């Protein structure tokens, strides 16, 4: 029992009149920074689970406990209002109050605190999230990235026990998303608040979460440590959902002229600098379809990464074939069946794996 009291335990079922059912069952520490990502295609029930955790939806069965507090218990008819749960909810398009300034938005949940306390908390958060000087602006006068940070500051200001992030970066353009990905992870770690987040972007998931729960059609397909789930999908459905077959711990050696030099296992890779990264531990994320296989080393190629590799295993998956390779680290390639036949691939065979630099995605570890 004492073990359970330090955990968020969600085990519930939400039924819709249309017949759709969403089932959630996962746990995570309820103190300190730890985050679970609910990952899956749209309509898989991710947001529903988040809304049930917040108390905005009422499940039909099961329980939700956070530490010693029971938030929901279908049998005992317990359903705590959102106000009583102490969660911070970051909405997908932020839901900032349009009639209030940035300062008042951030301080909105602190109305019970004294004026002085509210001021200092708001100022500290605005400073932490790089929003200083924007106090008197209105949400419509901010860039999307600034709005995202204001929404985060507002959600964490009342020191919530749990942060719920619904597609926290999806409303941003790609370059901003990449920069904010790292910033958000650092901010969450600084705030030391456990979080549950929803995303359909595998890189966002890897960057932000410790644990992954993969959903499809309202059901949990796989759960576990993030890089385990992403690099070893339990079945083809999960593999298709996560989309990134290779996630390997690596070390960023150097960044220079927009290029990043990475060491993964015994292999050296050239990638594009995503920005915001400093030399140190990273994850290398590679989609299987971005890997090209050759029998021998080509004389000239624009692909920067040419890795001698040995075929470990071959898994046919309909029209495509998943090829597990050892090229100093374990790499998964996804190629068409005719291509695999032409190359006459067999376990133990030597090939050359080619990768363009932009196909290697780096995420801070």
């Amino acid at each position, binding site marked *: 029992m004492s073990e359970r009291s330090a955990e968020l335990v969600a085990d519930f079922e939400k039924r819709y009149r249309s017949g759709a059912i969403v089932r959630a069952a996962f746990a995570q520490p309820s103190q300190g920074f730890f985050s679970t990502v609910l990952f899956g295609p749209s309509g898989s029930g991710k947001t529903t689970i988040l809304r049930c955790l917040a108390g*905005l939806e009422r499940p039909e069965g099961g329980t939700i406990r956070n530490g010693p507090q029971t938030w929901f218990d279908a049998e005992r008819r317990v359903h705590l209002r*959102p*106000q009583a749960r102490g969660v911070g*909810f970051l909405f997908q398009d932020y839901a900032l109050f349009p*009639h209030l300034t940035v300062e008042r938005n951030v301080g909105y949940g602190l*109305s019970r605190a004294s004026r002085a306390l509210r001021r200092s908390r708001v100022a500290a958060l605005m400073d932490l999230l790089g929003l200083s000087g924007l106090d008197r602006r209105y949400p419509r006068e901010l860039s999307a990235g600034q709005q995202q940070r204001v929404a985060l500051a*507002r959600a964490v200001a009342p020191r919530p026990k749990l942060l719920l992030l619904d597609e926290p970066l999806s409303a941003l353009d790609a370059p901003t998303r990449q920069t904010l990905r790292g910033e958000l992870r650092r901010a969450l770690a600084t705030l030391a608040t456990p979080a549950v987040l929803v995303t359909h972007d595998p890189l966002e998931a890897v960057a932000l979460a410790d644990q992954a729960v993969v959903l499809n059609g309202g059901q949990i397909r796989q759960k576990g440590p993030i890089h385990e789930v992403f690099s070893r999908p339990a079945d083809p459905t999960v593999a298709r959902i996560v989309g990134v077959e290779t996630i390997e711990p690596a070390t960023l050696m150097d960044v220079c002229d927009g290029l990043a030099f990475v060491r993964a296992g015994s292999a050296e890779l050239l990638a594009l600098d995503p920005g915001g990264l400093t030399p140190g531990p990273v994850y290398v994320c590679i989609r299987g379809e971005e890997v090209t296989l050759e029998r021998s080393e080509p004389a000239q190629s624009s692909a920067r990464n040419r890795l001698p590799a040995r075929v470990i295993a071959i898994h046919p998956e309909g029209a495509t074939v998943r090829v597990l390779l050892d090229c100093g680290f374990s790499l998964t390639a996804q190629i068409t069946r005719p291509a695999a036949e032409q190359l006459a691939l067999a376990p133990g065979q030597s090939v050359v794996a080619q990768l363009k630099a932009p196909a290697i995605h780096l995420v801070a570890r």
Partner: protein
Amino acid sequence: MDWAAVRVTAELAACTTFILFLLGLPLAYWAATTRRWWRVLVEASIALPILLPPTVIGFYLLVATGPHSPIGRMFEKLTGDLLPFSFGGILLGSVVYNLPFAVRPFTSALAGVDRRLIEASWCLGVSRAGTFRRVMLPLAWPGILTGLVLAFAHTVGEFGVVLMLGGDRPGVTRTLSVSIYDSVQSLDYTTAGRTSLALVLFAFVVLSITYGLQRRVPGV
């Protein structure tokens, strides 16, 4: 112009508007947020006066508030006056009759407030009442003001219910519209014309204000 009638009309419109503000907002909040199926029935009942002739409303209210009815008896005991043919009587009639003109704009204004803003406020620990005051009211105020202005103006122009319930007591229940009717009955076309022109100008100004308000969307 009959200045006593101007005073009665202004008092009636102001009191009606004030009561509708207090009564109409909770009703509109309920109608805008509830998921109960019988919401449509309540909304239809509130909207009835839009379609019914004022004489029908007046007749039912007259019967319901007469000295033989429970409401009428209670009012007589409390004030020593009869509810029909008193200011209280026409105020009651006016509130009932104007309910849709206030509640419908209130409801659509409150329903127009983004649901996620309300949920964001709840998640930040702010109660339903606090959320209503700090998020819904500020964002819905143009619609709420529209409702109040319409109710005020509609009370000023009300004739049938006032005549049925209030009779024609000068200084007590004789409003401007009733006084026009009286002037015409006594062939005093000059006074009738002057009062009518005043009401036309008033209605024009009010409608201009209303359309002006509807263009103002807060926060955009």
